[in-house]
């Protein structure tokens, strides 16, 4: 959120060197012949009450990052500290308790709700499971949640198939809010919605953040949406973060050639600005066999010999706002 809050600099989520590899198995006895390096050494921190946007194209590992932090997928390496506790080190009983504090909102409003359950059960099931409310108390809480996300409590005895995509997304949000979480991973939460509904949901997410002082990890491929909702943005390419800075700085001064290409590829709703864009050649390489050196070098217009051998580490650029980039050439580009 681009609002002036007193930045207490308290980090709610701290991700260090996160790696998630999926083994590739072949043959009769499922021998491991290689790994898909979906997430390959990702580190970031999110301040309490702020939003970090995570952008990248499909297959760059952004969804895997979100699910690994929530321990829905097992990490290969790295450490995630949430509110002082080590997420991967917790025994399963305490992990269940921690799950109350971190939630997930999904992309597809159709597959993310159990079609056999009524709205009241979808939203309220976790309250029962964590013994937070039962009976009348639960009904009251569910009604409150539904009203808060802009639905009527009359809807609580209906099934998901009786709602439109936008309404379903609201139900998904109500479910995530039921346990009063501190942190929500929004995994492409508005990508599947119609344009006029998308803005409704974005506003709702922002209002909820203000009211409940939530912290978001907002994962999306749409740079315009991410830029609108986030305080900070991390750009991912092939399992690695290539650029990280505040969202305004990213728009004003994108430094990594991939970020620049991504920005210029966004179609602008303005017919007078049919810009000369940097159209990237080629496609995203397979994460099972990433290129050597900088993963972006085969598509990069600036690449030179060094880029194919070694990748630059994430480095602070300039001395103003926090702006870290992993590129050898970004300084030259700038001048």
């Amino acid at each position, binding site marked *: 959120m681009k609002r002036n809050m007193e930045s207490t600099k308290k980090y709610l989520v701290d991700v260090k060197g996160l790696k998630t590899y999926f083994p590739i198995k072949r043959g009769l006895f499922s021998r491991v012949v290689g790994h898909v390096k979906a997430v390959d050494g990702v580190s970031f921190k999110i301040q309490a009450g702020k939003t970090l946007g995570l952008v990248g194209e499909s297959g760059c590992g952004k969804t895997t990052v979100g699910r690994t932090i929530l321990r829905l997928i097992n990490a290969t390496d790295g450490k995630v500290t949430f509110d002082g506790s080590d997420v991967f080190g917790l025994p399963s009983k305490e992990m269940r308790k921690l799950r109350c504090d971190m939630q997930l909102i999904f992309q597809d409003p159709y597959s993310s709700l159990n079609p056999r359950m009524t709205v009241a059960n979808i939203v309220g099931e976790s309250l029962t499971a964590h013994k937070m409310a039962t009976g009348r108390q639960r009904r009251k809480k569910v009604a409150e949640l539904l009203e808060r996300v802009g639905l009527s409590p009359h809807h609580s005895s209906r099934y998901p198939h009786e709602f439109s995509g936008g309404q379903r997304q609201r139900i998904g949000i109500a479910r995530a809010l039921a346990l009063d979480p501190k942190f929500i991973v929004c995994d492409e939460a508005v990508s599947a919605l119609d*344009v*006029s509904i*998308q803005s409704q949901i974005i506003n709702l997410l922002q209002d909820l953040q203000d009211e409940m002082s939530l912290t978001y990890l907002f994962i999306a491929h*749409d740079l315009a949406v991410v830029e*609108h909702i986030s305080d900070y943005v991390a750009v991912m390419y092939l399992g690695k973060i290539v650029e990280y800075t505040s969202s305004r700085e990213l728009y004003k001064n994108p430094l990594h050639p991939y970020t620049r290409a991504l920005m210029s590829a966004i*179609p602008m*709703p*303005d*017919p007078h600005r*049919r810009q000369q864009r940097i159209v990237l050649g080629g496609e995203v390489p397979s994460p099972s066999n990433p290129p050597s050196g900088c993963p972006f070098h085969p598509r990069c217009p600036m690449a030179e010999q060094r880029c194919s051998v070694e990748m630059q580490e994430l480095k602070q650029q300039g001395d103003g706002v926090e702006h870290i980039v992993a590129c050898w050439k970004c300084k030259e580009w700038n001048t």
Partner: protein
Amino acid sequence: MAETILMNDNDVLLSIRDLSVTFHTDEGLVRAVNGVSYDVCAGKTLAVVGESGCGKSVTALSVLRLIPDPPGKIAGGEILFRGTDLVTADEKYMQSIRGNEIAMIFQEPMTSLNPVYTVGDQIVEAIEQHQDKKGPAAWSHAVEMLKQVGIADPEQRVMEYPHQMSGGMRQRVIIAMSLSCDPSLIIADEPTTALDVTIQAQILELLRDLQKKNNMSVVLITHDLGVVAENADDVVVMYASRIVETGDVAGIFDDPLHPYTQGLLRSLPRVGSVQERLEVIGGTVPDPLAFPDGCKFHPRCPIGSDEPRCMTVEPELREVKPGRCSACWYTPGYETKEEFELYETKYGKHKEISG
């Protein structure tokens, strides 16, 4: 019904007139397309914009008569392609049109290719169907087509199966296939929705280049206003199975007339803008089984939600200034003098509209 919609003097290649399409479902009759008219001019790109379920795809599918029947049915109107009405044309004629004169590109590059044949087989099949080329001639034509759509190493790629290719590559193959018979019109139904932005930029650029080179017309169906702004010459905005506004692309974006178009443009998050909150069109897209009375947009409309006329009388699409049509009582210049007076005697003074 309104007669001419787009005031272009160029040759009109495809002209849809007052088209209505209905679907019989278990829950009742759905009017998916209701009195839609638009013209596509030779060599131009017409974008049809709208949200899911507004009837934009159904309109396009009915041009090729690809509506599943039953439950779908073209209930009325005509589709004139080079002067021939495709609604009443026989199936044999349609076969000669499909893929030959008019080609279609679908949204999902994963499912619009048959997984059990190589891409070469599929392109060659289209070529042999419509052209005199057979065997090796058709194959070399297929390779040529793949080269044209920017596929590296086409001699090799032509032997590959769809699953060996990435999404962007497959969409290129589909474009190659649809271009193989040199069509004069391409209907692209959300051609880049399933693709990443950088790939989308590649594909749209390719389409623009090929269109210029072959002097084709394109009907671009999309929900993405950015794609419209960068690619279209003319724009048709649809809402709830009807057209609410038409015009040239600059006009639509600079001076949207219909409250729906205005709301849509305002609700977009834009890169680099500093707005705190997005403006919102309230409510949800209406259920096609229970469209509201009067103007179908009135329950979500900032003007019409409490206007007695908007709630009861549906405004037709009218030309309000040269080249611009709108279907809203409150578009300046929409009402005739008689209607203006009739309204004032019936309901009292008109509402003041700011902005």
